[in-house]
């Protein structure tokens, strides 16, 4: 048995270059990777945090570059508990694309998924999207809103901790999309499924 009580899948979306990977790496590794270039072979990053004395494991999934040509697989959104939609506050087009992303989220993600809008790169001098515009957009679409800087480590910890806390609360009130109750894990080991109504995940 692993020593955590909750495991949540968090996925990031948003245009290429808005800093999704940097946010993940700042949070999970505490560093800011200079230069571009996706990390080959890394599917998701894991970080265990503590909320109310309980260990919560966050599994944070990145787009693997598939957002560049709008080719994110639908399965990427499946069974996500939280979804972070990121734009670059110094780049208007990344903000203009948000409605497109929302449509995709609506289509493939669970309706109960926790959604967070993040304006990244607040360390930049050349801001194009005022905070209030982001706030307004988030409010209209019923999302939690935060501005961050992966470079300066601003609000990054806060972002993920907020997600962990909210998901914990949902889990406690049983309001979470309950993926586990209907799926099976496929693994090399033989699992004995009695008369479960369950489905499996092959791991």
């Amino acid at each position: 048995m692993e020593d955590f009580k909750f495991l949540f899948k968090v996925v990031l979306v948003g245009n290429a270059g808005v800093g999704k990977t940097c946010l993940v790496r700042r949070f999970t590794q505490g560093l800011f990777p200079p230069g571009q270039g996706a990390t080959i072979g890394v599917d998701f990053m894991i970080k265990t945090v503590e909320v109310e004395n309980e260990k919560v494991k966050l599994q944070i999934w990145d787009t693997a570059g598939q957002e560049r040509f709008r080719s994110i697989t639908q399965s990427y959104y499946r069974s996500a508990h939280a979804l972070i939609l990121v734009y670059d506050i110094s780049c208007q087009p990344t903000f203009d694309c948000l409605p497109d992303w929302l449509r995709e989220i609506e289509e493939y993600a669970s309706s109960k998924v926790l959604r967070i809008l993040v304006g990244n790169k607040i360390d930049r001098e050349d801001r194009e999207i005022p905070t209030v515009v982001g706030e307004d957009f988030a409010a209209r679409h019923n999302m939690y809103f935060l501005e961050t800087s992966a470079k300066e480590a601003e609000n990054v910890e806060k972002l993920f901790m907020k997600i962990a806390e909210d998901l914990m609360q949902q889990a406690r009130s049983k309001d979470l999309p309950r993926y586990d109750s209907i799926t099976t894990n496929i693994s090399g080991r033989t699992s004995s499924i009695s008369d479960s109504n369950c489905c499996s995940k092959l791991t």
Partner: protein
Amino acid sequence: MHGRLKVRTTEEQQLLKRKEQQKKLIAYRMGMKQILDSRKPVNPDIYTLWNYRKEVALLEINSNINIEETEKLSNFLENELKLTEQCLLANPKSYSSWHHRYWILEHNPEANWKKEFDLCTKYLTMDDRNFHCWDFRRLVLNKVGITLGDEIKFSTDRININFSNYSSWHYRSTLKALTEECVEDELTIVKSALFTDPADSSAWFYLRWILSDPIVNTEHKEDLLDNLNQLLEIEPDCRWILIAKCWLIQDLHADKSNYVKEQIDCYRKLEEIDLLRKGHYSDKLNKLLSAN
């Protein structure tokens, strides 16, 4: 391009693992200390500690029994239940923990037996081989208003999922005495198991229990003997069939000479195929031969 992905070598992984283990060890020791400090039993099988807890619980119960503060008492009892939960997670087959749980529930005037019963159902669905839980269920059963029919159905469901299970057959045998109406059904279900897998011993024991009941009449037994002969034709080398056949013949026709011969044949065959118990069969044979 090749080798872009760096993966830890086995050595590094081992080193990491060792470090992880060390970390865990420290965490474990810290935890142990905390547990010992709060005088919770580390080993759930030290019954002296459980008895001590029961004495404390009795004090708590008696001092609160006439006071309005029922909440305090129920919190206390709830904590005791949680403790047994933790212990059962660590060792699901701890006699003392199961007993303590039942004892606490019995001493709680507001015990939620229904919840307890549902927990049993859930647990047994995950692991139907823990006889502690089956026993516990039997105790709890008397406290909740579950109809016998529902419980028989639960038992049938468990057996349908896995009939190679002594516990669930045994539980079934404790549910009710056999009646005229149900004896046929019970014979059918046990025969299904015997024919599906005659090499599986669990159902043979259930058969033996059924046969021990006087309600099973000669006709039933004759039928069964016929069935066993059919089964033996398909599976001539299965010792359980031969043994059961001997039970039945002994019971039905102990002194008829042609049946005695049949019994002798069975034991001779058993001597051949079940070397481990050869002495036992020889003994039976000698008794048969000397008596006739």
